[in-house]
């Protein structure tokens, strides 16, 4: 028995008067081999406790035959107890983690394949921050990317941005031409 198991603690506890009476009835029934008139306790754990108590209540002069019958009955009861004892259910762990892992993998795959690629770094090799294109420039570019779009506005916006872009690149530039 596991000393840490609360069910074992229940089995070791002193039986109540009601349990004692039921145990004596059960012991008599087992000894006589007759049908048990009184309904047996539902709880198998309780049955095991009663059996153990019944064995204690046996007369010391009884023959070994009675003890063997009780022992056999106890073995059956304990087997039932084992069958009913709540077990730690670890099955849920893989059942939960495997689908969750598969879902996470699927989400990552879909995200990486559908997300627009990251735009080239906005930092020069020397670590100088390259200015981001202003929204006015991006709007001009979007307006030009249509049938009949106006590219002259894009040209004008690019002039300003080009100056800032090369100035920022040049700030950290140590390469020769």
């Amino acid at each position: 028995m596991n000393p840490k198991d609360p069910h074992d603690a229940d089995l070791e506890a002193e039986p109540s008067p009601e349990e004692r009476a039921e145990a004596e009835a059960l012991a008599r029934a087992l000894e006589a081999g007759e049908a048990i008139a009184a309904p047996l306790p539902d709880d198998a754990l309780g049955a095991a406790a009663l059996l153990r108590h019944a064995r204690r209540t046996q007369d010391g002069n009884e023959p070994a035959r009675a003890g063997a019958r009780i022992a056999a009955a106890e073995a059956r009861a304990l087997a039932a107890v084992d069958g009913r004892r709540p077990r730690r259910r670890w099955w849920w762990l893989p059942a939960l983690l495997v689908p969750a892992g598969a879902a996470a993998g699927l989400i990552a795959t879909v995200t990486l394949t559908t997300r627009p690629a990251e735009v080239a770094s906005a930092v020069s090799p020397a670590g100088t921050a390259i200015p981001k294109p202003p929204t006015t420039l991006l709007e001009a570019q979007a307006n030009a990317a249509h049938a009949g779009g106006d590219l002259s506005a894009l040209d004008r916006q690019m002039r300003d941005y080009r100056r800032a872009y090369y100035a920022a690149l040049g700030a950290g530039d140590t390469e020769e031409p």
Partner: protein
Amino acid sequence: MSRRAIVTAMLLGALGFGGCMREPPPERWTTMTARAHREADRRLDAGDAAGARARLLALVDAQKAHAGDSAERRLALQDSYFRLARLALSDHDPRQAVAYADAGLAYGTAPHLFVANLLVARGAALEAAGDARAAAADYQRALLINETLLGQAAGPR
């Protein structure tokens, strides 16, 4: 004048002469590129499209030799090709514009403002050449990059 003073004066003179003869430090490629663009702008503002084109073609020739040195140099070359494509479009020469845009895109199509510009220019050239389907495809690719850039522009600076 003592001998020591004469020797000192000669040494100082030699050093000074050497300093004057030393070549100026080479111009940085970014400075050279920015200057070429400014000159092209000035010529365009003066109505000298041919002069602007010649300046940009010279810039492209210089940039090609170093296009493999870094991503920044490659992108700079792509920007120059965009400007040449725009000039060809202004000259109503869509085939030449497509050729310039193709030349620029041959250096890479990774998402960047300059790549999106090349796609826009090629889309406009294809549209002018009557290939609406190919033009729409280029516009769509440009807009995808543009959308990403807009998202970044709206983000933290």
